[in-house]
């Protein structure tokens, strides 16, 4: 049962990252996607983050990194610590290149 929910969490992560409306001009759409993505990120336990990040393609790591930084902008109770774990694991794969792309890309989270 526990394994099942964790794999569903990873599916949810892939879905929100794949359908992220980064290029959208509609702020409402972007805000909704941000809220939803952060909900997924914070629902995944720190112990499962490694596994979740491993299953992502490099393009999605970049998208993930954008949401991690966006999440830092509006912290809630305990969210920043949780997002730092995401940041660490994503950084291990994407390197500084991934962080550079958060800054350089014009289509942002």
């Amino acid at each position, binding site marked *: 049962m526990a394994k099942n929910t964790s794999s569903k969490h990873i599916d949810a992560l892939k879905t929100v990252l794949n359908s992220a409306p*980064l290029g959208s001009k509609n702020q409402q759409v972007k805000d909704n996607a941000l809220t939803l993505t952060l909900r997924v990120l914070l629902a995944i336990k720190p112990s499962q983050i490694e596994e979740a990040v491993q299953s992502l393609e490099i393009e999605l790591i970049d998208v993930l990194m954008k949401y991690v930084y966006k999440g830092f902008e509006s912290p809630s109770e305990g969210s920043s610590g949780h997002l730092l774990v995401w940041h660490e694991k994503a950084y291990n794969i994407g390197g500084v290149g991934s962080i550079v792309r958060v800054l350089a890309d*014009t*289509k942002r989270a």
Partner: protein
Amino acid sequence: MSQVVHRFGNIYAPITCHAWNKNRTQIALSPNNHEVHIYERNGSDWKLLDILNQHDLRVMGIDWGPNTNRIVTCAVDRNAYVWTQGEDKKWKPTLVLLRINRAATCVKWSPDENKFAVGSGARLISVCYFESENDWWVSKHIKKPIRSTITSIDWHPNNVLLVAGSADFKVRVFSAYIKDIEKTPEPTPWGTKMPLGQLMVEFVNSSCGGGWIHNVVFSPDGNKICWVSHDSTINIADATKGNAVTKLRAQYLPFLSCIWMTNNSLVVAGHSCIPILYNLTTDGQLVFGAKLDTSQKKQAGGLSAMNIFQSLDKRSTSEVNDTKLDSVHQNAITSICQYSGEKGNIKSFSTSGMDGLLVIWDVMTLEKTIAGLKII
């Protein structure tokens, strides 16, 4: 040694750009100001031969035509000069009117050296050629559809096509055909009709938007282009495969310069301070080859507690802040030039950067010393 480090006199300023003469005995470089220094190799040392002092503002580009032995320079003062060597071995400038109202950013001789192209902040490219009747250099403009500063240009081996990278996040291939001085060009995979200024193809750097182009180069056979941009990606477009673009999202800081070693492998370098080799597989994928800089951090006399306190005392600091990087270059690498070998089979290349160093990297010895390094 697989790499040799050079410093020129007392120059500790960044080296903006450098260019070699034909037999690699002399080098022209700008120490981040309005001057161009010419050095001659003297054993392992360098002798300052001449200072080309004509520009008013910072020099942005230097190119040395190997066969005609002419140097072209361009600068922020919106001028370009063609330098020719007189009988007395002194360099004489000829002003080229580029007709631009912003800084000139980059300059390149065409392969035949009968014309050169200058990119600028005026959102245009000046293609210049010598008109013997009037005894001066004429410049023709390529304007459309450039939307921002041209940051890098390169010539196709056919002496006609020109690729330009721009700060509007796009790479464009133009025709720079001058009908007064050359005959009609043969068709290429990039297109068949080539009047001056014709846009052959345009590439957007990234589907994620952004990433201005730092450097763009044609492959030795002219069928591919490679560009590096500020989003830390390396991109290759192949005209023989319907302009398909291969993109590699690198793990490093953005690359500022790239050079093709062969038609299938290239070296990039930039803010990470190390040159890195990438190979193009037969199915068109770009894969990591190797870091060419294998230097280890120098432990000055071991790390005994006594040494640490002595060094703290000497520098009168209270923290251990070792700022030395474990790479040969101690700051960003801004330009790469071919040093030996021919186009398409480069044996060694030179890099210069913000640390004021010039390093010559020998590919043959690198290939032997680095495990798994293979140039295809």
